[in-house]
């Protein structure tokens, strides 16, 4: 089930975009270790970065940096890394740019940035922003696979395996999927830093990107001025059984927030009651839904089952805005047998994910860095009570049995100690990287501040006041003394109590 379920971290990514007028290939990075190439004169050409949905574009200067696919065999296949630099508005800019690492794994930094650029507007005033599409994503030899999400939703292990084999065959035509892990990717990033001639850089990583950022810190910390980790995956964290448990906890928090909110409780009572009843109902028997497809308006019939519900529940808690209509949708389905809100959200969520992620790269990372460390014989009883159950774990296990595993740095999951000033951001109701993960990671940093924003989901970059916070942090270069007052005022979107909207 390589759909939303298998998306371990951050559901964002993008389509390939046009706009690069010419790619300037660098001389081969001939040294045995990628990232130790001598700085080259990199020539940039104007380009536009386009948001996956096409809603926003960002002007940038783009180039390509060529690296060997396998750093141990520099003479073999070369791949071009797509590098975009969003020039600072000010000509009197800081010398140290901000490198942005996207989530997924499988999302492209350049596409991620196009969607969240307004949140970096303050940073962009006086600092270059550098976006490197990590190897295997975006325009850096993306390991992309076409999937039929719908067909795979309730697929058995056999179907997942055959689908994964097809995907593997597809990406193997232009890549060795064992070489697309974090361990190698950070060497690329170092090569880009050197090629662009930067002494020190700042890092922003979101979700999976925080793993990249922390591993980069571990290897090349001397070149890092500051780091921002948003939706933190501590190095020790292995994405596996916890996914289901964390998702359940986040849902509990969302529903509890509704129950504690007067208008929400007045409208729905305790929404957890609807949730549990609905789960039980659907586990027994899927509900037949007739609806107009949210986008095309075509009439379609859907057997809405427990898996569908789990998908909606999990992805709804990613963002507080989506979560605002969750109690209403559960209530509609349970009390009025109106499954249209849930079913249409399911369709929209899977629709918007399709094609954005480079699933092959996702598999390379997850199978090598996470599933490889999961003990499949471990006790699974804890998962039974969650809405995800063992569904995702089984699915990931099935595809990782097919997907080749790459070598991983021995210290990838070792605790990280760093004195680089670091700002950690967590959402109070994050279903993937809960605040306790942020706290755990923060413990390894001697100069860090960990900010938890109540009620928010995964990734805080779009939250109000975070744009100021990161701009101030980057300007000062220190975590201490940051003005955090605005964080306390942030409230998630109020719950919809009727189809008309929230209480006034």
């Amino acid at each position, binding site marked *: 089930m390589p759909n939303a379920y298998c998306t371990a971290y951050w559901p964002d990514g993008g389509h390939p975009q046009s706009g690069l007028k010419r790619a300037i290939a660098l001389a081969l990075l001939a040294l045995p270790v990628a990232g130790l190439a001598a700085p080259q004169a990199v020539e940039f050409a104007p380009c536009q970065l386009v948001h996956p949905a096409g809603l926003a574009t960002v002007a940038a200067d783009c180039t390509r940096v060529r690296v060997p696919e396998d750093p141990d065999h520099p003479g073999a296949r070369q791949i071009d890394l797509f590098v975009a630099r969003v020039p600072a508005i*000010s000509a009197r800019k800081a010398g140290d740019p901000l490198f942005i690492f996207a989530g997924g794994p499988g999302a492209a930094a350049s596409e991620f940035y196009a969607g969240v650029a307004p949140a970096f507007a303050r940073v962009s*005033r006086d600092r270059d922003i550098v976006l490197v599409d990590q190897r295997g994503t975006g325009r850096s030899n993306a390991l992309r696979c076409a999937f039929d999400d719908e067909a795979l939703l309730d697929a058995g292990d056999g179907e997942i395996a055959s689908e994964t084999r097809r995907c593997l065959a597809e990406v193997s035509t232009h890549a060795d999927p064992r070489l697309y892990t974090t361990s190698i990717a950070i060497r690329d990033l170092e090569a880009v830093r050197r090629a662009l001639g930067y002494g020190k850089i700042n890092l922003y990583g979101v979700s999976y990107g925080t793993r990249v950022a922390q591993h980069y810190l571990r290897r090349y910390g001397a070149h890092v001025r500051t780091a921002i980790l948003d939706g933190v995956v501590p190095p020790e964290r292995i994405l596996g059984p916890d996914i289901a448990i964390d998702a359940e906890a986040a849902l509990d928090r969302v529903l509890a927030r509704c129950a504690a909110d007067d208008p929400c409780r007045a409208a729905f009572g305790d929404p957890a009651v609807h949730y549990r009843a609905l789960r039980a109902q659907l586990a027994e028997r899927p509900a037949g839904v007739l609806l107009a497809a949210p986008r095309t308006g075509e009439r379609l019939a859907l057997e809405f089952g427990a898996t569908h519900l789990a998908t909606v529940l999990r992805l709804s808690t990613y963002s507080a805005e989506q979560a605002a209509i969750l109690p209403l949708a559960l209530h509609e389905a349970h009390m009025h047998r109106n499954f249209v809100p849930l079913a249409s959200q399911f369709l929209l969520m899977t629709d918007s994910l399709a094609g954005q992620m480079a699933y092959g790269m996702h598999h390379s990372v997850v199978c090598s860095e996470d599933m490889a460390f999961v003990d499949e014989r471990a006790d699974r009883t804890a998962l039974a009570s969650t809405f995800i159950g063992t569904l995702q774990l089984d699915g990931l296990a099935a595809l990782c049995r097919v997907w080749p595993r790459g070598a991983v740095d021995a210290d990838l999951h070792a605790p990280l100690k760093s004195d680089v000033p670091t700002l950690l951001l967590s959402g109070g109701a994050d279903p993937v990287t809960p605040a306790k993960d942020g706290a755990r990671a923060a413990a390894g940093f001697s100069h860090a501040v960990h900010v938890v924003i109540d009620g928010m989901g995964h990734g805080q970059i779009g939250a109000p006041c975070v744009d*100021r916070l990161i701009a101030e942090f980057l300007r000062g270069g220190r975590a201490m003394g940051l003005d955090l007052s*605005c964080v306390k005022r942030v*409230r998630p979107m109020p719950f*919809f109590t009727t189809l008309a909207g929230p209480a*006034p």
Partner: protein
Amino acid sequence: MAGRRGIGAIATVWRKEVRESLRDRRTLISALLFGPLFGPLILAASLQFLVHRTVEEADQRLVLAVRYAERAPNLIAWLEARNVAVTRVALDDAATRRAVQDRAYPLVLSIPADFGTRLAAARPAPLQLYSDASAGRTDRDGARARALIAQYGAGIGRLRLLARGVDPLLQMPIVVQEIDVSTPQSRSVTVLGMLSYLVLLAMILGGLYLAIDATAGERERHSLEPLLTTPVPREQLIYGKILASATFMLLSLTLTVIACAIALRFVDLENFGMTARLDAGVVAKIILATAPLALAAAGLMTVVASFTRSYREAQTWLGIVMLVPTLPIVFVGLADLQPSLGLMAVPSLSQHFLITTLLRGEAISPLYALVSVASSLALGAALAFVAGRLYRRESLLG
């Protein structure tokens, strides 16, 4: 004898006028202080103010007074999360209007009694925003408040569609993706449009008093009559004076452009995504491009001053006439004209185009430059000729 050494006589007059003006505090102040110093200072200061206001206002908390805040607690909480400082006030309509007018509360949001019921009925729910559109700051803050409220409304609208199973993106059938090819330099031209205006004015101002002094002033001091008894053709006298005035204009022009280049270094235009780095090359080119106009400007000033009967009258007239060369620039700004070969034949306009092109960091077409120089010098020669004719009149002595 004088005929043979006519050029010499022109040079003699030029030398004397320049020397005398260099000793005249009034001429010096106008040539070397007002234009070259105050002009760029005012330009830089006003730009700096504009830059800071724009950047700072966006960073400051938006102060918003709210009537009946209890009618929309969710809205208020949402605004407070977004850098809005909400003050709850209990004022009636009349008192609110007064408070806004008096700036006691520059911006007041009032929540009508039916806001909640209309929102719950999925009908457009009204909010009232009191502001004073004639007060610049309030107006800009009002725009911020409106944008925030609209953002909140858009969020609700999106979720309304989602909850009904409709893709919110259906509302956006078409998306325009802007591809802005402007450069920091070309963007700064919109702000620096007044630079050519300033440079021209400062240049003319530099030679203005000399032009008055050499004509109306000389007549008023009765030094003209003895001058006319010397064996020098009258037109040569005026040519020398025009050249002296043009010299001071060139001096003022050079100083002004250099001063602008220095002053603009202290403006944080970069915060606007602009750059106004006038390097030595651009400075030199701007001076060279504008210089040919000095002759025409000096000629014009001298011709007009020759018509006046007194120093004071000349001052009054020239104060108006010195704006004439800047009129084409204003017109071009209003009509948004682009450079063309025809327009390059219009003195002052062509200099404006050349300066703008240089500020944009673009190359100047040699043909355009040639036409500009030729037309400006031709106008200057024509005006000098007219001035020479005027000096032959007997009424010159007044």
